[in-house]
């Protein structure tokens, strides 16, 4: 019997669709990955790496795979989507699950992310670097549970991966209206938005998408960006990059062979897209 199951995890809402046993297995997989890659859970492997004072730290299993995926995405987006931006995100106040945020008293200074690499079971970075795998972990896990055949559909926050040929997705704007209806089919779609999850830091509006070029929450006319790609990991990274690039985001997406389509909701409400 096919079913749809919704639950809270990875700081967001996760939706799985498939047979009952597959859905249960997929949920367990999400919980495993969150246990490894959460920046907030005290016992997570990522938190231990972030707290380690050595410059070279052994990693393995899912964390090594996630870091490898994150490194590829970082390179593919020219450094725009970089998990090493985590220290800046923390400095701007996003140091706990969103519902528990506390406003920082003042704006932090901008500081670009340091270089990091993972190879041969070792991650190498400057001690003090905070790697944030939040977005990568959501997309990567959606990909894993669908590619394994456990479920035919997985969605985590704004990221989704589908093995359903007829899947059509309604992209909703920050006013909660349908901005576009997008045929996704077998593939993935992700939406990144700065209109949600906002808070204030030292009197300045802040949001979770920190631009590694400035060390500050992105200054962009794009309220939300959606990208269709083959995998949720690619779609998630593409959406973030389009949002960060602002006015040049759609032109950049149009040049990326791994991005099938990009759609942006502009400040004021207009909606634009690349050619399908």
């Amino acid at each position, binding site marked *: 019997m096919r*079913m*749809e199951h*919704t*639950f809270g995890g990875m700081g*967001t809402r996760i*939706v799985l669709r498939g047979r009952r046993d597959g859905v249960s297995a997929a949920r367990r997989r999400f919980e495993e990955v969150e246990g490894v890659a959460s920046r907030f859970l005290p016992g997570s492997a990522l938190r231990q790496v972030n707290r380690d004072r050595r410059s070279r730290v052994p990693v393995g299993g899912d964390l090594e795979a996630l870091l490898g995926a994150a490194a590829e995405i970082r390179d593919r987006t020219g450094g725009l989507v970089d998990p090493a931006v985590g220290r800046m995100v923390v400095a701007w106040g996003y140091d706990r699950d969103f*519902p528990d945020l506390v406003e920082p008293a003042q704006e932090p200074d901008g500081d670009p992310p340091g270089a990091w690499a993972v190879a041969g079971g070792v991650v190498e970075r400057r001690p003090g670097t905070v790697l944030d795998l939040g*977005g990568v972990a*959501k997309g990567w896990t959606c990909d894993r549970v669908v590619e394994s055949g456990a479920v035919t559909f997985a*969605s985590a*926050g*704004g990221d989704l991966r589908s093995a359903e040929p007829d*899947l*059509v*997705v*309604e*992209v*909703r*704007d*920050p*006013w*909660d209206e349908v*901005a*576009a209806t997008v045929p996704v089919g077998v593939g993935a779609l*992700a*939406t*990144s*938005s700065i*209109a*949600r*999850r*906002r*808070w204030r830091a030292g009197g300045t509006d802040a*949001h979770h998408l920190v631009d590694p070029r400035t060390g500050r929450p992105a*200054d*962009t*006319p794009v309220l*939300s960006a*959606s990208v269709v790609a083959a995998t949720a990991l690619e779609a998630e990274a593409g959406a973030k990059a389009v949002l960060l*690039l*602002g*006015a*040049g*985001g759609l*032109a950049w*997406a*149009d*040049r990326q062979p791994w991005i099938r389509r990009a759609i*942006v909701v*502009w*400040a*004021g*409400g*207009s*909606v*634009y*897209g*690349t*050619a*399908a």
Partner: protein
Amino acid sequence: MIRQRFGGVRSLRILSWTAVAVGWVTAVIARLAVAGTQAPAPDVPVPDPPAQTVFVPSSGTASTPALPERGLVVIRHTPDRRPDPDPVVRRVVVETTVPAPSAPAQSSGS
């Protein structure tokens, strides 16, 4: 007869005009040759154009996207700017289990 036609003063005039013409042609050729081998004239400073004020919108205030090479699709045009949406500052996650099928999938961002 020939001596009559080209005698005296007339011969002298022909010779003198011929000499003048040859000299003039030689001078022109020499001037062209010298011009071809001379170093280029030094650059003459061009005065700056009058100052202009160019307004370059920052990324945060651009009114439309830069044009993609394969074209821009306007999915929805909103000539009257909408007020900014209310940000979600707190969210409660509710755990539920419902049977399929369900409403169309949605994506609105994390």
